[in-house]
């Protein structure tokens, strides 16, 4: 009688343990996927701010066509780019480079530099760049937490049975590791 009870208790404990492990893995995996989607939210936010910036700059520096066209081109390319991470990163790098040139413009045009609208947009775009990198950082942190849980004992035994897979980190590609050039 006693042994039966003990066996039942052990089985119940095992079941509970598996439930906790499974839920923990699910929770972490969902957080990883959420974090990935949030990166796109921030990238889109940046793309949406660009037309406004271009209009403001045009009012003061209309003949700087080259720089402004470059940024519009980069923006359109980013919207049209396919969804895979490599293409996205490339388009993203092009926008960053083009934007840097636009902000460098303000050094030559003191009226533009003092314009409240321009300053507000500059602040917004700088902040959005920050948000994009923080979103990527959070994605990597979530991936770390998920991979840790996945690979640690004893969860690792169950993870393979339940078909959980390791996730990849977001890596800066070779392109964006170049030092950006700012030309005056």
């Amino acid at each position, binding site marked *: 009688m006693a042994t039966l009870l003990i066996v039942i208790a052990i089985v119940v404990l095992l079941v509970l343990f598996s439930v906790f492990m499974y839920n923990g893995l699910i929770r972490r995996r969902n*957080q990883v996927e959420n974090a990935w989607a*949030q990166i796109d939210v*921030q990238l889109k936010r940046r793309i949406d701010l660009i037309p406004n910036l271009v209009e403001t700059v045009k009012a003061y520096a209309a003949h700087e066509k080259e720089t402004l066209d470059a940024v519009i081109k980069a923006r359109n390319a980013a919207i049209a780019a396919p969804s895979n991470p490599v293409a996205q990163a490339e388009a993203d790098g092009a926008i960053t480079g083009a934007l840097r040139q636009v902000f460098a413009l303000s050094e030559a045009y003191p009226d533009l530099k003092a314009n409240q609208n321009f300053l*507000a947009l500059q*602040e*917004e775009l700088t*902040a959005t760049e*920050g*948000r994009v990198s*923080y*979103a990527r*950082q*959070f994605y990597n942190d*979530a991936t770390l937490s998920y991979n840790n849980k996945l690979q640690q004992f004893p969860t690792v035994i169950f993870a393979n049975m339940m078909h959980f897979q390791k996730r990849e980190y977001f890596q800066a590609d070779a392109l964006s590791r170049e030092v950006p050039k700012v030309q005056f």
Partner: protein
Amino acid sequence: MFDQIRANKRKSAALIAVFVLLLAAVGAAIGVLIGYGLIATIVALVFAGSMAALSYWKADAIALKVSRAKPADPDQYRRLHNLVEGLCIASGLPKPGVYIVEDPAPNAFATGRDPKHAAIAVTTGLLEKMNRVELEGVLAHELSHVRNYDILVSTLVVTLVGSIAILTDLGIRMMWWNGGRVRREGDREDSGNPLAYIGFALLIFAPILAKLMQAAVSRKRETLADVSACQMTRYPPGLISALEKLRDDTTVTHSATTATAHLWIEQPMSGVADRGKLSRLHSMFDTHPPLEERIELLREL
């Protein structure tokens, strides 16, 4: 960095465990000296606990009111809000309330019982003196307090300190008025009971010990917040630079009081520097580690 964070959390837990032991020791001392040790301890805990619980529940409102903090207008303080939002994305925290304190001294504090009910305040002096990355470092430090539930930790500690204070106070009074169980049972045999002496010494010294430990816990959590902040921003030079500026700045924060001192990033009211043996004693009661030490630690990261 991750290892430091884990080690720090372990040590804070150990400190609090010692605290609980101290409380138990005081309770036992009361038991030996007067009787009713267990009941007295429970009553003291409940009393101190309920007072602390009230302040914990309303922590954000109280701290903000006392410091005369006003909500920061999103249009006027665009950069501040942007930085806080960025850090919330990095840490996965919900965005706390953002407040401004009119004070020329650079300082900041965080409060709130959990990340969902949190608030961060910065002084106008801080906004003027810090550049973008330094401001971000300070904000990350404050958000780390929220993330690490430091308000909860300090409320726990305050409860323990309060219980010890109540118990020892009661104990000494009761011994004075009742003559204590030792003397009542009170023959020549009993007056030499060594436990009574130990208990009495404990009653006298426990409150000071408790205060010292409270300061030690506070210092540990401040260091944890510093390292956590660097994990959030992945950019230690920002916070290092901010701490260096704070170290070189000598304006005294007027909006702080002794009660809220532990919440601010830099120890307020540190206008006068002591020298010599007395300063070492004073520094054991500091709620923050010295700025030099904090800067050195962060440089090692």
